[in-house]
């Protein structure tokens, strides 16, 4: 099964805005074993200069889930999910993500290519806040391993 290169440029919008909560930030920080109180204690976060608890740096991977899941499930794109491993990931922040943020996300397919018997699919998710300002862009490359 080959990934359809005609899908480069196609966008998948999350059906609803992502509401960042204290509970989710705590759950994520605990899952990655990050004990910093700025992830869990609003007073510590405020003392550090933030409006509320701060999401760990890799938290925005969650923001890309809604769009990338739509892309991967899109039969016209042709991704065999059973062969997928993660190739690379990158985050570019305009500001940190904090509890209380309500973020709109759009995921765009930015590249499709073949390399060494594998196929590479690159997706980029842009998250903007309720006032339309850019918060973070998450780039992800998935490797669909050849048989």
């Amino acid at each position, binding site marked *: 099964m080959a990934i359809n290169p005609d899908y480069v440029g196609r966008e998948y919008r999350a059906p609803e805005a992502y509401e960042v909560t204290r509970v989710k930030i705590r759950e994520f920080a605990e899952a990655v074993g990050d004990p910093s109180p700025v992830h869990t204690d609003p007073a510590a976060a405020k003392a550090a200069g933030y409006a509320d608890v701060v999401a760990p*740096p*890799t938290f925005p991977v969650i923001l890309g889930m809604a769009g990338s899941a739509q892309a991967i499930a899109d039969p016209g794109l042709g991704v065999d999910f059973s062969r997928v491993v993660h190739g690379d990931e990158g985050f570019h*922040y305009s500001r940190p993500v904090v509890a209380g943020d309500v973020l709109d996300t759009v995921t765009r397919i930015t590249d499709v290519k073949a390399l060494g018997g594998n196929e590479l699919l690159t997706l980029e998710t842009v998250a903007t806040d309720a006032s339309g300002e850019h918060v973070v862009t998450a780039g992800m490359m998935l490797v669909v391993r050849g048989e």
Partner: protein
Amino acid sequence: MSKLRHTDVEVGTEIPERTFTVRRLDLVRYAGASGDFNPIHWNERFAKSVGLPDVIAHGMFTMAQAARLVTDWTGDPGAVVDYSVRFSAPVVVPDDDEGAEIVVGGTVKKKHDDGTVTVALTARSGGAKVLARSTAVVRLA
């Protein structure tokens, strides 16, 4: 928490290596927290059926540990401006109580006039280099 100052670091400053352990339970917990339920991260039967040596860690779990090395060093988890990694080999996580170890380290590569620094990161597990071309740009106090 005290924050590292831009004047405290130089090009070549090293962040001491740290070792993080990852067990199957950590992967189950990370799957739940992140929403990434790809069975290669928790189902040995499935992982082997698609040609992997065993269950492998989420790349994002490793990326999170390398981020911690940096943010524990700077003292400010909200000061990451750019952070990117390439997953160059899987972290294979056996079904035992010891799990796998991920050894991460970092070196300051550039100091920028805007108060940020670029840190180059490394990570190894089971003798393999599991992160490549990995850098974080962080703002210091």
